[in-house]
């Protein structure tokens, strides 16, 4: 009986410790119901002349999100699924703190998926935001860093229909593009990695508004040590993609030989891979990029017959196009003096000792880097048709050969 009492007391004591411990560990202090929070999906950061930083927050308006709340919410466009709220401060953190005082319910940042930097803020340096965004535990490290040539608040206020939530729509746009060119997926951890790499040249997807005020992926914004330097167009973005590594499903449009006819030939690169080699040369560095790509034909010029010779010609044209694109981008980056093609990082990885010797003078070396491109495109399939339909038409009688015989 005594032993039983001792055991009972030991158990009770253990239960008390567990009970009290579980209450005190987090014990309701952190409790925050979902309806007592403002879900922030995107943050826009703009320069504010008066106070420093203007932060725009895209906040979910749950009652107006289509298909939520038992289907009784408004989907007619009377009320938007998101609310736009702005606050200013000397820093992003300060502005977000001010936002807390202006909007009922607490601001919940853990679901934030976009940070859009306006052009003027980006030009003055996005590294001002990096410490806060890296240090604060609320933010996810997979949130996208985006740049825009407009004001960030305008981008967040735009409609990304058919997606009801603008931030989700923009993220989807970027992810769609990144399936072809992974460099567009400028997630926070990737941007920080590039920012801290020897090249110190992060890139971010650039989002602009088109004529109908819908967000579109405009290209890529390149930064030198956190300062926006330039924006690459779509073709330049492709060139940078081929320089940096793997790409998938990138379409190349080649002009027709005799007449344009508004169509041209399309070669779709199924995938491509790039090998980087570098060797020091007197007074600089020579890099060799070897690109291997497999392709299929997306479209042929009218009246064009596909044969072995034509196929070789198309491969050659595609290779030349890729080579030219890469050279074009390099020239631009060298002019801007920004190593967005990550040559510095790749040299460091291949020749660390050599890199230590030249790292201090890399800003002067990079503009003089010579690049050799060896591109090999291999068209492996012609898709469902072999030749253009018009190629079977007889020029003299306009009757397709083989018909009616």
């Amino acid at each position, binding site marked *: 009986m005594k032993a039983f009492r001792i055991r009972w007391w030991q158990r009770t004591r253990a239960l008390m410790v567990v009970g009290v411990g*579980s*209450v005190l560990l*987090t014990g309701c202090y952190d409790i925050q*119901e*979902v309806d007592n929070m403002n*879900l922030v999906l995107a943050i826009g950061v703009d320069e504010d002349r008066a106070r420093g930083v203007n932060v725009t927050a895209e906040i979910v308006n749950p009652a107006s*999100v289509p298909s939520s709340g038992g289907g009784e*919410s408004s989907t007619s466009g009377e009320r938007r699924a998101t609310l736009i709220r702005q606050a200013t401060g000397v820093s992003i953190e300060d502005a977000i703190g001010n936002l807390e005082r202006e909007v009922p319910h607490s601001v919940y940042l853990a679901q934030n998926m976009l940070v859009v930097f306006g052009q003027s803020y980006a030009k003055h340096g996005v590294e001002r935001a990096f410490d806060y965004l890296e240090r604060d535990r609320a933010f996810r490290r997979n949130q996208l860093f985006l740049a825009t040539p407009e004001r960030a608040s305008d981008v967040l206020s735009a409609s990304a229909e058919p997606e009801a939530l603008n931030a989700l729509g923009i993220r989807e746009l970027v992810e769609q593009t990144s399936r072809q060119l992974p460099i567009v997926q400028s997630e926070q951890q990737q941007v920080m990695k590039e920012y801290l790499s020897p090249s110190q040249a992060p890139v971010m997807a650039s989002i602009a508004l088109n004529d109908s005020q819908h967000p579109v992926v405009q290209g890529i914004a390149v930064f030198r040590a956190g300062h926006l330097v330039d924006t690459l167009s779509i073709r330049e973005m492709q060139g940078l993609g081929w320089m940096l590594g793997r790409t998938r499903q990138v379409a190349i449009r080649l002009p027709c030989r005799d007449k344009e006819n508004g169509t041209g030939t399309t070669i779709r690169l199924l995938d491509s891979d790039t090998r980087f080699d570098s060797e020091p040369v007197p007074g600089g560095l020579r890099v060799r990029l070897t690109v291997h790509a497999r392709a299929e034909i997306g479209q042929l010029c009218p009246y064009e017959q596909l044969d072995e010779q034509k196929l070789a010609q198309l491969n050659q044209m595609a290779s030349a196009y890729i080579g030219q694109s890469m050279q074009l981008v390099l020239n631009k980056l060298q002019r801007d003096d920004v190593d967005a093609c990550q040559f510095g990082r790749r040299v460091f990885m291949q020749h660390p000792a050599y890199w230590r010797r030249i790292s201090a003078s890399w800003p002067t070396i990079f503009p003089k880097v010579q690049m050799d491109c060896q591109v090999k495109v291999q068209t492996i399939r012609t898709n469902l048709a072999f030749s253009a339909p018009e190629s079977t038409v007889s020029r003299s009688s306009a009757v397709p050969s083989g018909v009616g015989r």
Partner: protein
Amino acid sequence: MFARFRRSDQASSPSGRKPRTASDLNISESDEPIPDRPESMHRWLDTEWARCIDFQMRDIEVCGTRITLFWLRGIVDLLRLETGIMQPLESVSKRRLQLRDLASVLHTVIVREISTLGEFNAAVTDGQVVLRMWGTSHALVLEVSDPPGRPIDKPENEPTLEGPQEAFVEHIQLNLALIRKRIRSPRLKVESMRVGTYSHSTVCVVYVEGVAKPTLVAEAKRRIQKISIDSLNDINKLRELIGDAPFTLFPVTDETERPDRVTSNLLQGRIAIMVDGAPNCLLVPAQFIHFLVAADDYYVHYTLTIFLRMLRHLAYWSSLFLPALYVALSSYNQDLLPTPLLITVAAQHRGIPFPSILEALVMLTIFEVLREAGTRLPRAVGQSVSIVGTLVVGDSAVRAGLVSPGMVIVIASTGVASFALPAYGFVNSSRLIQFAFVLAAGLGGLVGVLLLALILITHLVSLRSFGVPYMAPGAPFEWADMKDMFIRAPWFAMRRRPKHLEPIDSVNNRTPVPGKSKASSWDLSES
């Protein structure tokens, strides 16, 4: 034979006399010999069987010898009493009858001799007829009992689509016969004991000699012999009296109403404990994993069983964790939810006046009340109550803005998941534990849930059932026994009995793998 009384008898006498205590009854007299004089016997009967209107006694004279028959009305087969005892006795013509002469005359009934009052009482209460021939020191017990009972029926608590459709009833002899029918071997041993000071219930320990571990059988018998209680007519009472961990919520003994399940368990090395009057029996030792195994698993193809068992595991853990996870994720750890899902949850919870934990506790309680109401009411009404309660109350609560639709879905899914489990006793434990998990989630979010889960796992691995670890063969891990744990391997692959039960003969299947025979169809046709 009978255990001593430990408490006084509280039953009051209808005649207004002072109630007799157990010591007044002086049960120890039961070892005394049956009086050989009618007067002494009547005196004893007047004391012992007073105010028992169903006690019957008939004096007859057979060829000048006075014989008295004693029985209890209602539990004796009167037809057999007439044709098997009375009529043969009337035909006796021999003078100076001896007791053994009567035994040979009454050849249509089973006859045995008794000599003590205790045996007399036991025989009469068992529904047998006691024949007393005056002038001798012994009496004959004539087996003509026919206690009231129902015929063998379909299993109601463990129904299967395929396989046998017989279930135990409240008659232990019938129940034993159902097992004997399936194991036709003298190796099937049945050891009987009487438990219960008043009920004198027969408790049988059933096992297969040469398969079950002898120490396991001895331990079971030892635990049963230690029972000293007024009556024992129920398996649950026995389970609580002989279980290893009396304070745990988890059942450490398995119970079944299916003789086919008992048979397969006996042949695995377990033992069955049956109680007269109980329509089910205990199976020991019982492991956690057994409660997620249904009888159906062995009657369908093993590939389907794999899927069903996985589904059942998912259902069990869902029934424990789903409400708690919902509370934790909607109150503390919203960052772990995908954004679209969180937006939907937030939209649903908008305007609900209660925090998620209170919402969950209220809904769980309502669900339990509905379940209890459905169980207690007659089947037709119970179903109506369940439907009305679930649909009307749930829908109204959502429309009134008291509960979010998400919470209704979670609680309903939890309930449905618990219904998917085959063992009702096991479901009951999860019904209580889910409340604890919801409270833990409300207090500490996912940290609280994980903490309680760790305590639960620690508790589970510390449990034992008749000396066998409760979580075996998972912990301690036994690879060979995994063939019938999360999956069921095909019969041809299950060649050995579970190792954790330490059977004497470990091999139970020597069938060659089908389709591996080298004999061609030509060889077969020639032969």
